[in-house]
């Protein structure tokens, strides 16, 4: 392709310039996410539940935006580490800088068993892609104690828990009927 924007002639007017910049941010982890990290190191998932609407927030964030109620330790609950795939996406990786995956892979939304809570973008381990389906029963696979780390978990990491919760594995139980989670498909 012919580059029409640059000229080596010093008498030509400047038509384009490059400016490279980078911005570095360092965020401090909020109190609820700090407790969430501690629980992950312990192989547990915790969340906050709004006392009014009963919605479950995982990771906990310190408030319920629906009822505008502040939440704290008193609203924290222990979650199950088994649940149902409610939806999924097959990602075909493009080899952009930093992409480690080379083959198509699944990212699934998982509705945890009661008291509930939704984890998004979860890996379904040791399962051919065409076997993943909504309704599939799965259980969490944790990194071994001593091998877990939560270095990547901050206020903005959401459901990305790879350092501690490696992903989910099918349990082989009968599928959950779609009607039971159709209002929670993400």
């Amino acid at each position, binding site marked *: 392709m012919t580059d029409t924007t640059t000229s080596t002639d010093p008498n030509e007017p400047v038509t384009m310039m490059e*400016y490279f910049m980078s911005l570095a941010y360092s965020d401090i982890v909020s109190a609820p996410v700090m407790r969430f990290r501690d629980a992950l190191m312990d192989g547990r998932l915790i969340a906050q539940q709004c006392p009014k609407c009963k919605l479950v927030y995982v990771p906990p964030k310190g*408030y319920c935006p629906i009822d505008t109620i502040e939440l704290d330790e008193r609203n924290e609950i222990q979650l199950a580490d088994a649940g149902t795939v409610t939806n999924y996406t097959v990602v075909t990786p493009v080899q952009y800088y930093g992409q480690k995956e080379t083959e198509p892979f699944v990212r699934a939304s998982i509705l945890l068993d009661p008291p509930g809570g939704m984890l998004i973008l979860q890996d379904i381990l040791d399962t051919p892609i065409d076997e993943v389906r909504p309704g599939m029963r799965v259980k969490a696979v944790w990194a071994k104690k001593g091998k877990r780390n939560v270095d990547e978990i901050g206020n903005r990491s959401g459901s990305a828990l790879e350092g501690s919760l490696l992903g989910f594995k099918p349990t082989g139980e009968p599928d959950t009927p779609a009607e039971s989670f159709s209002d929670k498909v993400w």
Partner: protein
Amino acid sequence: MAAVKPLKDIAIIGYAQARNERQAQATEVQFLFPVINEALEMSKIPRRELGFTCAGSCDYLSGQTFAFVMNLEAVGAWPPISESHVEMDGAWALYEAWVRLQHEDIETALVFGSGKSSPGKPAEIYPLQMDPYTLTPLGIDPVSMAAIQARALLDAGKVTERQMAEIAARSRRDAMKNPHAQVTGEFDVDELLAQPYVNAPLRTHDLPPISDGATAVILATAEKARQVCERPAWIRGLDHRIEAHQPGMRDLTVSTSTKLAGQAAGVGDAPIEVAELSATFSHQEPVLKEALGLGDDVAINPSGGPLAGNPVMAVGLARIAEAAKQIVEGGHTRTVGHATSGMCLQQNLVCVLEGD
């Protein structure tokens, strides 16, 4: 010529601020929560009755895309609400809400400004708001630009380094009574002047602190304000003006835009008792005083002002909230709140408030 419809009286009936912190552990949404709740409680307006919400914030500060959308979680936006956002100080969100209330179809509005400056490096972030061809590549940051402005003022004989230190000492002494302030205390002017320069001719005390914080204000139409509020702070004049972006095209020793905004807002129509000014650097206070025609009898920044706490995107709205507080709680009858944006007082907003 068509007759100009007179502007409607709008009042401030509630306000609240977060405590300014150098680094808040709480997320921006978390520290907005109690601020919005407290302002609503003071106004006695039920949250679901709010007619409009307008926020001011900047995603670059915390480095989070769509942080401004996330901030709505502290408002209560389900079922959906009517809201807007300005990538400016919350004072300009107040301006938008004030214009919105002129339509007379709604009675109340929530305005807030918030910012978490602690995660980033202001000297890296601020050059990005400048002209990307001639200024951003120079890495022009607010402290360097303020130093150029201070030098111009010193050279023009409009301020002395001692006066600047006195302004800083007075601000931080006054701030001892302000529970939201971040930098407070008694400082000896001679000792301040013995300190080394950060960017000559500015010393540490001439600079604002880096602050995380938030401010919320509730506005109401005259009828609604009289129903729910014993002593509203009436917005009698509100105007904002902007000057050339390129600092080299401006005389940095004066603030023409503040002067014009002040005239349009009617600052000089009657005596002002208290002025809360966004004099982010010590030397900007005399520039703003002169532009607004404020004499030495006017109390300047009794809250301590931006030198005691500078939550970017909330600090200008905080000045208006403090000016309103002087009427609602302080018993004053005529005050002014001022907000600024851009480098070296490029854009300025002036709000004149009155009590009954």
